[in-house]
């Protein structure tokens, strides 16, 4: 990180991979149905992280966030992640 680093904010969304069981999503669907929401078709339950970081450039920031996702925030064996930029 260089001294002239700029602030960035990323949003990371992590969901169970499509072919992997999502017990939480199923449970929430069931609960919503029980309390009378009849239009619900499907819930995917995941995690979201807001990551504020400083980096020299947007490329660097995006590389860093990608690495964080792979190393810590998401478990690639069972989860997919996506990154959006709130402050790029």
């Amino acid at each position, binding site marked *: 990180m260089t001294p002239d680093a700029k602030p960035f904010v990323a949003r990371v969304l992590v969901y169970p991979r499509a072919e992997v069981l999502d*017990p*939480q999503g199923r*449970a*929430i669907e*069931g*609960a919503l149905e*029980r309390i009378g929401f009849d239009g619900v078709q499907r819930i995917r*339950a995941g995690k979201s992280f807001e990551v504020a970081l400083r980096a020299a450039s947007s490329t660097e920031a995006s590389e860093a966030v990608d690495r964080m996702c792979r190393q810590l925030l998401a478990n690639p064996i069972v989860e997919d992640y996506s990154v959006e930029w709130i402050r790029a």
Partner: protein
Amino acid sequence: MDPGVKCGIVVFPGSNCDHDVYHVLGHVLEQETLFLWHQKTSLEGCELIVLPGGFSYGDYLRAGSMAAHSPIMAAVRRHAEAGGRVLGICNGFQMLLEAGLLPGAMRRNRDLRFLSVDVHLRVERDDLVYCSGYRRGEVLRMPIAHAEGNYVDTDEALDDLERSGQVVFRYVDSEGNLASGANLNGSKRSIAGVCSAEGNVLGLMPHPERCAEDLLGNGDGLALLAGAVQAGGGAELTAAVGG
């Protein structure tokens, strides 16, 4: 055992301390006790309602959040509002919070891990029917077993709670002193159990039903359940506590 009250233990899918509570109420205290299925809409004349520990609906969202919407909870709410006794233990406490029958909320434990250990509790009130077997300031030992027992509310709400004397149990060290090392889950103000303003609804994270027999090496929890099934109470209870 003296004639006490008819007890109902609500069984949610995922409850797993229902049988333990039944064992103490039905066998140790010899009370008339029945299980109430979560889909029921009537409490079948039960005077003490216990919401037991466990992982209702898997607790996949927030602990207790889905159970709080069960059909039976409307009846439990009416019972509570009419001054009836409702005791929530662990997951049952979480449900009472989620249902708004007690104030506050739970977060995950401070170190984000499940905690299964014995803790010490200080009894903050002895004028509740539940605490009639304890003295104020007495230190109890009880097991906890939870991942989300980190009690929280806004500072104003907590101040109100303290002012109205609704904090019933606090985590303390074995000498009865507040200490952050004794407050393992990180609860605000070391709160382990709270009651409603009228004192008829009690929720606590520790498990009195797991320490109600000498055989298991600890009988500290028996008095709480014995108090809960004491005959009388009801209206007098409301009057005595004054809210």
